[in-house]
């Protein structure tokens, strides 16, 4: 089998569609998912002239849906796709990763990747079916919430229809709007839903088609069985399948590392512990080909919450009752908002109110920690851009409406609110990770989670490739472990494989490069070694660095919220910890060295030339 990867380019302004195959060199260099998305993003932004001049809401901003290379096959946990564009939230590269069932359906319908250009004249949606693309009117759909939209589309097109949709937040170009598939699965980060809304595109619907063709069916089946067996013996897989990611809350909370009241405090109530959330869960759900089953279906009418939501719509805004936090989780999902950004931005606004930097004249009414009714109303106002909600709908860009000092309390990097509820002042590698993350403050890009484990030196050396300092609170060798995490997580994103089965994320075991190589050759016939596969991750990171350089980012943007440098953590084991500015710069030097970048964070010219050669041949 000669493996081919199919890209459809759809111009909503003209109604034209064309389908092409990715050039073999580029396919091998980036594989799919996040990697090829980044390559295409650079290509299309540069084709428009100066990427800096491309308004995220303009028709020139490409919106790219890219399934992972293995997505939809029987490879373990291969469900994922990335959505990429210039982010209206951060202004830099926007890239959101999502699970569920949509990406497998998109591939079965005949498309590995969609590049959506232009803007439809009227509200529209795309129907992908048996290798064909239709642009259809979405008049009756516009204005619907997430699940309602998906149900309408299912009623229109029949069982087996899977849709990625935007809710009211995306329609109203809320800068932290998500693209949703199912009740909870979100391509949440960076406002990709708002880009979709700006294109008058309500949904992408996939149906039909057959099984995804693979190169060596029997080899893939054997690899799946062996890897599944190994994964099912993993403690973390077993526990995630029982209680989901909320299990992390108690650990971080005990340590004193839960972002609480906009990181003024660092621990919160036990009401948000996993077993409290379990009381509201009636089933654990899975994505395509998943062996973990980590997603709660809750009894309050939705799915989730995840740890990030527990923290950011709980502790970070002072909401302690379990049911209230879950109802806020369900609300943001129904409206199509990114829970991480929403919780961070509301927490920020609450602290500004607490400090008197904003008042009732700006907010419309008091904004108090833990005030569920106010928060519920405010989230709706954000989605529909009403009153003060219209201001907060600007996410980090709302800073322009506030006094300059407001920025001191914003927990964001590169204008992206921090994704997860972990206060990173204690584990220095976590801090470096969110500082250099290519899409802004985000733990899923490179978190070196093994820092929490007390692994023997030889085990650490085996994972990271050489001996390294085991002190998680020190600054030494953090460049090494963050760069290692960057690369393997990027490769998993190129393949469409979930973080929860990827080595380095919550476990030193799980699937590593060799297991990925075995899956790739069986599914596609493409041969890689662990070393050549890691190069795909490195190349993806390099391409992202080039994208961000086009938007004017420099070393100065690889930084942290002011509070993480200047305010020591107040309580518990983490008390007194903060990030030393000078030591942080040393970590950054080490990180750039690991990446092969110069001390200003720039790529060698030869690397840039090679990347541009590959992109030119796309």
């Amino acid at each position, binding site marked *: 089998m000669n493996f081919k990867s199919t890209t459809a380019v759809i111009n909503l302004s003209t109604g034209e569609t064309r389908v092409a195959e990715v050039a073999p060199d580029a396919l091998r260099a980036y594989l799919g998912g996040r990697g090829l998305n980044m390559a295409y993003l650079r290509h299309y932004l540069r084709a428009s002239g100066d990427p800096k001049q491309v308004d995220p809401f303009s028709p020139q901003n490409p919106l790219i849906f890219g399934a992972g290379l293995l997505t939809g096959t029987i490879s373990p946990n291969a469900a994922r796709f990335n959505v990429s564009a210039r982010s209206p939230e951060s202004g830099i590269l926007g890239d959101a990763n999502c699970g569920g069932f949509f990406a497998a359906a998109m591939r079965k319908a005949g498309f590995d990747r969609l590049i959506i250009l232009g803007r439809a004249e009227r509200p529209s949606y795309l129907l992908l079916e048996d290798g064909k693309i239709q642009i259809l009117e979405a008049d009756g759909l516009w204005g619907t919430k997430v699940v309602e939209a998906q149900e309408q589309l299912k009623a229109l097109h029949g069982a087996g229809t899977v849709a990625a949709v935007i809710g009211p937040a995306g329609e109203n170009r809320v800068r932290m709007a998500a693209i949703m598939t199912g009740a909870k699965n979100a391509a949440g980060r960076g406002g990709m839903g708002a880009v979709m809304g700006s294109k008058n595109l309500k949904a992408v619907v996939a149906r039909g088609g057959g099984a995804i063709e693979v190169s060596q069916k029997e080899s893939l089946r054997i690899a799946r069985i062996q890897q599944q067996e190994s994964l099912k013996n993993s*403690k*973390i897989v*077993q*526990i995630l399948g*029982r*209680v989901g*990611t909320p*299990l*992390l809350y*108690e*650990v*971080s909370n*005990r*340590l*004193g590392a839960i972002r609480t009241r906009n990181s003024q405090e660092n621990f919160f109530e036990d009401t948000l512990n*996993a*077993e409290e959330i379990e009381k509201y869960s009636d089933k654990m759900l899975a994505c395509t080909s998943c062996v973990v089953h980590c997603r709660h279906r809750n009894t309050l009418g939705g799915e989730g919450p995840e*740890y*990030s939501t527990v923290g950011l719509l709980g502790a970070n805004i002072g909401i302690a009752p379990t049911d209230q936090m879950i109802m806020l989780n369900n609300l943001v999902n129904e409206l199509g908002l990114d829970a991480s950004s929403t919780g961070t931005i509301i927490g920020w606004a609450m602290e500004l109110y607490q400090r008197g930097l904003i008042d009732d004249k700006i907010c419309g009414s008091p904004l108090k920690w833990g005030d569920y009714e106010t928060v519920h109303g405010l989230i709706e106002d954000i989605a529909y851009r009403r009153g003060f909600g219209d201001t907060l709908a600007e996410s980090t860009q709302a800073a322009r409406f506030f006094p300059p000092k407001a920025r001191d309390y914003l927990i964001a990097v590169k204008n992206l609110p921090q*994704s*997860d509820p*972990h206060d990173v002042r204690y*584990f220095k590698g*976590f801090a470096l990770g969110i500082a250099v993350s290519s899409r802004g403050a985000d*733990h*899923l890009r490179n*978190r070196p*989670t093994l*820092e*929490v*484990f*007390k692994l023997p030196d030889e085990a650490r050396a085996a994972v990271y490739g050489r001996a390294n300092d085991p002190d998680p609170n020190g600054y030494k060798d953090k460049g090494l472990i963050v760069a290692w995490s960057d690369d393997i997580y990027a490769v998993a994103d190129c393949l469409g494989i979930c*973080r929860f089965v990827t080595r380095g*994320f*919550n476990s030193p075991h799980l699937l590593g490069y060799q297991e990925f190589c075995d899956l790739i050759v069986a599914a596609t016939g493409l041969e890689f070694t662990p070393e050549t596969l890691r190069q795909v991750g490195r190349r993806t990171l390099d391409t992202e660095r080039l994208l961000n350089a086009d938007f004017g980012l420099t070393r100065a943007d690889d930084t942290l919220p002011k509070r993480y440098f200047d305010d020591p953590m107040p*309580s*518990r*084991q983490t*008390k007194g910890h903060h990030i030393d500015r000078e030591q942080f710069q040393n970590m950054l030097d080490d990180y750039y060295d690991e990446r092969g970048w110069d001390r200003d964070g720039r790529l060698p010219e030869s690397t840039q030339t090679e990347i541009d050669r590959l992109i030119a041949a796309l």
Partner: protein
Amino acid sequence: MKITVRLAEPYWRAVGKRDLELELIAGARLTDLLAFLNQQYPALSKEIAETPPLMFVGETAANMETALTDGAHIHLVWQIGGG
């Protein structure tokens, strides 16, 4: 002396409850507590052997040699910190 032990996920499931109230001899250390738990709760012993916990006494991280005092509150949590 009396102490309380809070067990986080996954340890508490091996015991069936989140909190234990225990009586230990004066001067006991964490190593003595773990030996006691291993003896009393074989399923918990297995969990701890498979995934050694982070141990806290009150607000502070502790190790096997940490001395316990009357009224001490011990919290055993899993070593994990992803997202």
